[in-house]
């Protein structure tokens, strides 16, 4: 698996390839619309949704503005409850910490609960290099791992695969990772889920080390929270003797009581359920487990330093913005070149990585600014605002020289009613010569769309002639 996304083309290029893939477009359309409708139904059922959203945004803002205090509070609470706390400034350090902890157990295999943070830092690959095999246990992650694929969605990493493709992946790859797929496996979702159950059962029952992330970490009590559906999370969190949780420093919530807000916002926004099937909450060394919390920075403090951009750290990874986004629906997750795709990825990735490539520079433009993401965000992240903020950064960096010149020229014409009127008259005079194909970057328009011929008379000339009468 290669989740590192190094050397990916800019968004428009990758997105164009995805648009041409009819199967992918069909899969994405079906999946995003299904979940969009489910979310809308359970959100409309909650009479105080707007108030919960405002509280969620406020709580996360409170945490972020006082993050140093809350991190120290969390550390004390976890240690008081018998857990160990480690701090990782970047991905490499987090991987090293986890590797050392696994080595100390003498084990060479670990089971994993789906975790965005460990994907972000490439933990599986780092462990593999040192001879330790990490088994993904979430069904979608399993599909991605077995398919030697990359995740394309925060909640449903294999959203780009349909049932027939999943069956094919299981039949081809399960045997090389463990128990093979059952004979006569059909593409019924029920049969595929059963195949995953059988494939992973032994692995769970014998696992000695579990690795997870967390949805929330309560600063006041040191409680960690993992929401899931299948029970693979519970297996990885409770059966192993050693549990290592890699958690981004933005995952904190202030108090135990505050979970009442997020336990309502997240399931309804995420899977479109009133409540997800399973949630595990534990504090420190639960039931005698050896528990390690690895707190991860890896660029988050860069995001925090940006007064407009920091709101992206409120994100609770529900993926509602992906499901609502018309661009994500056509482009798919891989085009975003990061484990964080969709609208939230378009604002988070370039901030975490700091515009490190042409791809990163293209991400703030991967949006029509339609605002559907902001509408559904359960913590009210104004994604269009941050996109515009980041576009200004890209433009100011001089990355798009030709565009900058064109924009300057347009501004000069538009700053003068006289110049504008002259331009309008010229275009009107030569309206019969309006080309079917425009030159340069404007050709992108006429590839698929006609352009309107300029009118013989602009509005302002019509108004002037009317005033004369």
């Amino acid at each position, binding site marked *: 698996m290669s989740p590192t996304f190094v050397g990916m083309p800019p*968004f*428009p290029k990758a*997105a*164009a390839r995805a*648009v*041409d893939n009819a199967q992918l*477009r069909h899969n994405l359309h079906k999946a995003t619309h299904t979940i969009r409708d489910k979310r809308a139904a359970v959100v409309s059922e909650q009479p105080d949704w707007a108030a919960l959203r405002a509280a969620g945004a406020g709580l996360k803002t409170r945490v972020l503005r006082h993050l140093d205090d809350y991190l120290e509070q969390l550390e004390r609470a976890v240690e008081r409850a018998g857990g160990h706390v480690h701090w990782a400034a970047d991905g490499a350090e987090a991987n090293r910490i986890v590797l050392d902890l696994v080595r100390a157990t003498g084990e060479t295999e670990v089971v994993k609960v789906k975790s965005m943070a460990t994907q972000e830092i490439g933990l599986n690959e780092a462990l593999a290099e040192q001879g330790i095999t990490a088994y993904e246990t979430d069904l979608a992650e399993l599909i991605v791992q077995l398919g030697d694929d990359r995740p394309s969605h925060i909640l449903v990493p294999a959203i780009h695969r349909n049932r027939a493709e999943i069956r094919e992946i299981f039949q081809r790859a399960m045997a090389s990772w463990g128990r093979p797929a059952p004979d006569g496996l059909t593409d019924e979702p029920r049969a595929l889920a059963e195949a995953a159950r059988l494939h992973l059962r032994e692995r769970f029952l014998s696992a000695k080390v579990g690795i997870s992330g967390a949805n929330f970490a309560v600063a006041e009590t040191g409680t960690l929270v993992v929401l899931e559906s299948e029970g693979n999370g519970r297996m990885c969190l409770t059966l192993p003797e050693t549990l290592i949780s890699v958690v981004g420093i933005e995952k904190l919530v202030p108090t135990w009581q505050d979970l009442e807000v997020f336990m309502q916002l997240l399931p309804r926004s995420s899977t479109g359920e009133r409540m997800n099937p399973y949630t595990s909450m534990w504090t420190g060394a639960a039931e005698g487990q050896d528990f390690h919390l690895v707190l991860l920075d890896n660029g988050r403090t860069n995001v925090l330093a940006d007064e407009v951009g920091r709101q992206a750290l409120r994100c609770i990874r529900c993926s509602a913005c992906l499901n609502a986004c*018309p*661009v994500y629906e*056509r*482009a798919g997750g891989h085009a975003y070149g990061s484990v964080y795709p969709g609208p939230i990825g378009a604002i988070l990735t370039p901030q975490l990585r700091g515009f490190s490539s042409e791809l990163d520079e*293209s991400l*703030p*433009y*991967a*949006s*029509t*600014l*339609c*605002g*559907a993401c*902001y509408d559904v965000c359960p913590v009210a992240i104004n994604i269009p*605002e941050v996109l*515009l903020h980041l*576009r*200004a*950064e890209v*433009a*100011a960096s001089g990355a798009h020289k030709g*565009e*900058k010149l064109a*924009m300057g020229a*347009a*501004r000069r014409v*538009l*700053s*003068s*009613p006289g110049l*504008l009127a002259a331009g*309008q008259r010229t*275009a009107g005079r030569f309206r019969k010569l309006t080309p079917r194909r425009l030159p340069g*970057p*404007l050709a*992108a*328009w006429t*590839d*698929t*769309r*006609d*352009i*309107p011929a*300029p*009118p013989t*008379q*602009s*509005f*302002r000339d*019509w*108004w*002037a002639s009317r005033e004369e009468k």
Partner: protein
Amino acid sequence: MRVALFVTCVNDTLFPGTGRATVRLLERLGCRVEFPEAQTCCGQMHFNTGYRDDALPLARRVGEVFAGYDAVVMPSGSCAAMVREWYPTLGVEPPSGVYELAEFLVDVLKVEDVGAYFPHTVTYHPTCHSLRSLRLGERPYKLLSAVRGLTLKPLGGSDECCGFGGTFSLKNPAVSAAMGTDKVRNVLDTGAEVLCAADNSCLMHIGGTMRRERAGVRVMHLAQILASTEENPA
């Protein structure tokens, strides 16, 4: 009531019929319409593409040109949203009383039946900024429903973006076109003769796609349908 028309640069240059219809409609409803000729552009294209330094003088010009009116009416949802929602982030105070056309009719003039006649089947695309920034909601539908002779067909997936997005349509042409095609399919599914919206830039994208596909559906700005009468049909 002294009403200034901010026609917007796109309408001024490419769709003067929308401006003329807006004037006709507002005058019919008893407004004294003025067109401050120093007006040009709200700066949305520059701002949305990241060129705030270029947007700023344009925004300041709007602030100056439109100061002192009872109302500033804009036949463009996205330009109205630019002025009201985003000027403050540029440090520019928006002129007071800026309204998108449907807002002005329903909220200020308190009319839903503007006395229009348009004997055609019409479907309405609410456009993103009208829908989610200005929250126009039911206003345009109420206005259209009151038009005599008009049959309004519901548009499937109406809250989904058409894929225009300003310079998005040039920077991400493949996705933009794919969204446009899907929007066109929904429009055709209604069987309507006319696709109506309150933003000509979106209509330029959807209409341009339909013309290329020879879809045979006309696009019209809301102002043109509301201005249409038996004596003077659109």
